[in-house]
Structures are given as C-alpha cells and as structure tokens.
C-alpha cells in the first residue's frame, strides 16, 4: 500500500536535505500522506492514544527520575517529597501513576479491537507479534514501576511476582536470586528495578517504531476486513485521521484528567502508602488492576508451577494466535458465530479481573451456603476463575481453530467503498475537493 512517494520538496533547504537525508520525505510519507482506509471507526483511534500515552509516561517519568531516590531507606519519602516540595510534582506523579492505568486501558481496547476485526491475520502477523512484545514489555515496566514507591504493596507484590520464577524446576532458584541481586527483595532489587524501569520504556519506544513500520507495509486493516482495492478506498492520514484521532485523544484525556485531578488514588491500593515492611505482610496482596486477570489465572491452579506456566501460557498464546485462527474472514462482522464467542471471551476476561481482586475462597453469590461438590466449594471465586480460565484458553485453542473450518460466514462486501458506508457525504461528491486546504 505504501506506494511511490509523492513528496515534492518545495524550498531550497528541503531539496538540499532531501538528497542527503530524506527525513522530511519519510515523515511526509508515513505521517501525513499515508493512505488510510476511509472507513476506520473509533476503535481505531487507540493506536494514536497509545502513542500519546507512551510520550506522557516518558516525559513525566524522566522528570520523576530527577527527584526519586532508589534506596530502600529513601524511596518512599522521596516520592512524597515529589508530592509536596517539587513544583507541580503532585501533577507529574499523579499523571505518571494514573497514566500507567490509562495506558493499559487503551492497550486492552486496542488488542480487543485487533481480535474482533482480525487484524492479526495475514499479512499482519508480524505487526501483531510486535504488538504482543510491546504488551509484554509494558507489563514488565508496569510491574517494576509499581515497586519503586516502596510501599507495602510494592514490596510484597515484588516478593510474590519474583517468587513465581522460583517455581521453575532447577533454574528457578538461581533466576530468583539473580533477579533479586541477593537472597531476598532488598536494596539491590530496588536499584536494578529502577534501572530497568528507565530502560524498558525506550525498548517499548523502539518496538513501537517497528510496530508502525510493520503497519505501514500492509497498511491498516479496516472494520470490513476487506483489502483496500484502490485509492478511492483511502484518504490521506492528514488531515482526516489526525483530526479524528485528535478528537478521540481529547475525549480520552478528559477521562484521564478525571482520575488525575479528582480521583488520583482510586486505581491504587491504600496499603501502598504504608512504607514497605518485610516483617508485616498485608492481609490481601493484590496487583494493579491491569494484572488482575493474569493473577486470577495464576491462582486458578492449585499447583504453583502449574499456575505460573498457565499464566505465561496465556500471554504466549497471543503470540501464536495468527496461526490458531483458521478462518480466512478477518472481520467478525461477517462471522456471527465467532462474534458471539468473542463477546463471551471479553466477558470472561472481565470476570477473571473480578476474580483476581477477590479472595479465592470468598463466595461468589451472597451468603448462600456453599455448594459442595467433590470436597470443594463451587460457590467461590477460585472456581469462577477456573471456569473463566478454561474459556480463555478454549477460545484460542479450540473455538477459533474449529470455528474457522466449520462456520458459514456472511457474504463479505466486494470492497470497502460501496456497501458499507454508514455516513454518506453531506455534500455531493466532487463539490469541493481538498478540505484540508479550506481550514
């Protein structure tokens, strides 16, 4: 889709630069003139939102790192000093802490969009896999970042998560010791986590460049999943999608602002304002909300190693998804059965999140006395998470492979221009051209 460049250097300096380093041409072709399907809906705006969130996290994070002290004796107080004595430190820190949540919210919507519209299918497998790598790096960065304030949840969360590696046979213990930099979570752990928390966002930024590159070779998928046939199916990225993404970004920022300014601690846990104390374990260790589904999968298995393998398996599954889905039809608009299973999948993920936040033995339904079956109380969150976990894996490993071979998809449109227009032009086609020139 990225055809020959249409960039024409206009000024002398642009011509001079273009024959030496065609960087302006590159920017023009990738960010301004890039032909984009004209039927993208609002679910497609989250890519732009994510790019902005990465930028915000990098900018606020670099300032925070100027004031933060990565030492077990000073980390907690240094974070509070940022809140009190650094100019607008409260704003920078709350933007960063809530920004992580917003980043994950956006990435989950972005991934679900990809799942629904089949954006992982040929020829976009590499694009999808790079996206999975970004998500993996985000998870590592998010987890490590939560450790840095060195509150109770930071410390005990770090103990729980790093101990997961200890479940692996033979190599488990050396890996844990290596991660800790000692024999327990302590100052060396905090130091290396700080270093990695500064490094990983730049790794993410590099992966994002690859992600955008891999996007620009086959071009955007679109809600119909049908390939772009001609230039009539596309519009230049600027101004059409800069303004549409811009609008979506502004709406997203309003949600973000509602948290930063009015509920800055709503997404965190109160215990993380208690300085870390290795001798006192919180009654209920929970990760940040964006890890809760994986936490539920981890706890769904009675065996520690099994739980760890299943949790990592849930992420690994995403990487091989392009080869699990056997359907040639991309968009679930034309796969009514698959669409039903997809919505159940979204629901299962939300249920897993709920289970991760609850104590495994708590009853799901009120105070109803437990339903005892095979010596187990079925009315408990651990059983609910088992059911949801089963569905999570069944969706990828059973439903998608089988459904693609057995279902009868609805007829797909010939191209994206004709039958799928939900918003006809308000003036006759050709009445005015190039609205970008009319402001």
């Amino acid at each position: 889709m990225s055809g020959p460049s249409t960039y024409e250097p206009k000024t002398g300096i642009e011509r001079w630069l273009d024959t030496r380093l065609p960087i302006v041409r590159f920017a023009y072709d990738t960010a301004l003139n890039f032909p984009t399907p004209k039927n993208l809906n609002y679910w497609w705006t989250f890519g732009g939102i994510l790019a902005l969130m990465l930028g915000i996290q990098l900018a606020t994070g670099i300032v925070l790192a100027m004031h933060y002290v990565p030492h077990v004796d000073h980390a907690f107080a240094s974070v509070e000093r940022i809140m009190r004595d650094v100019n607008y430190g409260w704003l920078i820190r709350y933007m960063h802490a809530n920004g992580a949540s917003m980043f994950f919210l956006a990435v989950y919507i972005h991934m679900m969009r990809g799942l629904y519209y089949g954006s992982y299918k040929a020829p976009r497998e590499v694009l999808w896999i790079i996206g999975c790598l970004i998500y993996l790096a985000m998870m590592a960065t998010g987890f490590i970042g939560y450790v840095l304030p060195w509150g109770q949840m930071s410390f005990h969360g770090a103990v729980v998560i790093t101990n997961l590696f200890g479940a692996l046979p033979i190599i488990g213990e050396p890996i844990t010791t290596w991660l800790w930099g000692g024999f327990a979570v302590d100052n060396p752990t905090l130091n290396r986590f700080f270093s990695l928390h500064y490094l990983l966002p730049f790794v993410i930024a590099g992966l994002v460049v690859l992600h955008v590159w891999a996007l620009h070779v086959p071009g955007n998928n679109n809600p119909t999943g049908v390939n772009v046939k001609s230039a009539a199916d596309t519009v230049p990225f600027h101004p059409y999608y800069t303004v549409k993404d811009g609008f979506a970004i502004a709406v997203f920022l309003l949600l973000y602002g509602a948290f930063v300014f009015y509920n800055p601690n709503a997404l965190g846990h109160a215990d993380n304002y208690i300085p870390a104390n290795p001798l006192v374990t919180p009654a209920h260790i929970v990760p940040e909300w964006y890890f809760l589904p994986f936490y539920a999968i981890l706890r769904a298995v009675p065996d520690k190693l099994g739980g760890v393998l299943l949790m990592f398996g849930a992420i690994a599954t995403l990487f091989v998804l392009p080869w699990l889905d056997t359907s040639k039809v991309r968009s679930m608009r034309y796969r009514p059965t698959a669409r039903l299973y997809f919505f159940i999948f979204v629901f299962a993920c939300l249920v897993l999140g709920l289970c991760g936040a609850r104590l495994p033995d708590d009853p799901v339904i009120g105070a109803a006395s437990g339903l005892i079956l095979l010596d187990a109380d079925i009315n408990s969150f651990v059983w609910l998470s088992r059911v949801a976990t089963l569905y999570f894996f069944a969706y990828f490993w059973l439903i998608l492979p089988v459904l693609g071979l057995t279902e009868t998809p609805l007829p797909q449109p010939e191209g994206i221009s004709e039958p799928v227009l939900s918003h006809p032009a308000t003036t006759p086609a050709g009445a005015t051209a190039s609205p970008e020139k009319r402001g």
Partner: protein
Amino acid sequence: MLRKAIALAVLGLACVAGPAAAAGGHIELRHESWSFAGPFGKFDTAQLQRGYKVYREVCAACHGMKLLSFRNLGERGGPFYDAEYKNPNDNPYVKALAADIQVGDIDSETGDAIQRAATPADRFPSPFPNDAAAAASNGGAIPPDLSVIAKARAGGPDYIYSLLTGYVQPPAGLTVTPGMNYNKYFAGDLAPYWTGDPKHVPTGGFIAMPPQLAPDKVTFDDGTKSTIDQQAKDVAAFLMWAAEPKMVERKQFGLGAMVYLLIFTVILYFSYRRVWRNVAH
C-alpha cells in the same frame, strides 16, 4: 457516534469499577460531609487549626509525622497560611508554634547532642528515638507515622473519624485480650475470642491504642465545643491535609484543565465533522 461513545464509556467503567467494587468489605464507615470533598472542595482553615491542636496535644505523644515540617503549616493551603508571609519560614505564628517544640540537634561548637527550640525549617520530631523504643512503650505495637495515614487507609478521613469514635462496649460474649481495646471499625478477626454464635462473629477488632479523645481534653481557641466527635472530625481533616497538602491546588488546577480540554474536544469534534463532510465513510 453516540452509541459507540456509550459502548466505550461502559467498557471503561467495567474495567475501572470491577476491582473498585471488589475492594469493599466489612463494616460501613461513618460518613462525614467534609468541606474538602467533591471537585470544588476546600479545606476549612479553622478546622485544620483545631485538628493541628488535637494532633499536637494528643496524638503527637505517640505518633510521629516524619514527612512534615513546621513550615508546611504556613504554606499556601496550610492551616496557618498568611498571605503577608509568602515564605512560611517568616510567618511569626508558624515560628511561635515551632518554638514550642524541642528538637534534637548537634552543637556545632562542641559536637554534643543538644535539645533546642524548633524553627519552621525543622521536621516534626518523632516521639520515640526508634521503633524498638516505640514498641516497648506501647505493649509491642508501634504507633504508625501519621504523615500519609489518610491515604494509607481505605476510607481515608472517614476511617480515621470512625476509628477515633468507634470505641464502644464490646458485645457480651467477646473476651477482650488484656492490654487491647475493642473498636468496631478496626480490622481484625474476632472469631477466636467469641463465645457466642459462630455464624455471627462481631465486626471490628482489637487495637492496642486505648481511646484517646475525651470531652474538653483539647481547648479550641475559636470557642468550638470540644466534644469527642468534634475532635475526631477535626484531626481527621488535619490528617487529610497533611497527607495531601496540594489537594485544593490540584482540584483548582483540574477545573481549568478540564474546561480547557472540554472546549478543545468540542472544537476538534466540529473540525472532524468539517474535514470529513465530503467523504463517505
């Protein structure tokens, strides 16, 4: 467009509300209508001043506030802020409050450890030299630092207010451990101490801190009637300020930012409609 916006909003809510709803638990806290609640809330200066007095005369005997300095009391938004003294270190009232307190220091001439009157630049001194001393004086329980306590407990100021007024007669059938006190808002599992119906174990827990507030224990300079309820409320508000001294600044800044963003959003929406009006999509 609208349908999609609603779908997005519902999805966002589902992601946010799930864990939040799941965090709840036991007993309903006492809810006070705080002056600083809501997007336009502000701290009540008189209440913060009363709250500081409660902290200083009652709580400070056992609880430190390591993250606070006397100067914080005179900073913008603080209990003793005076617009005439932009630099709180010059504020005579803050200086006087600090001078009432002795802090440890090193004599620069002799190197001896000395005690001297505090200045606004000094931090609130801790009541115990170390955690071991704190535990030894309090039956093994270390009184927590109160700097950010209002952020460190679910329910925040409501929890503090409830806890301080939650010392009630233990229900019949509950054996209170010697040296401990029953409080109906404190977290704990009372099943081992309960001789009544095992299905109806009372809520609450045993707290090492005995009830500290009493009517007229603190004399309020502004003539406010000094009840237990009033003292608890005022100190809870003071602790909320101490935990989040920039809260009012944050909300005021937020109003401007949100209005700006809202206008920007509307402009972008109409730009979007205009740019796309000739494109069927």
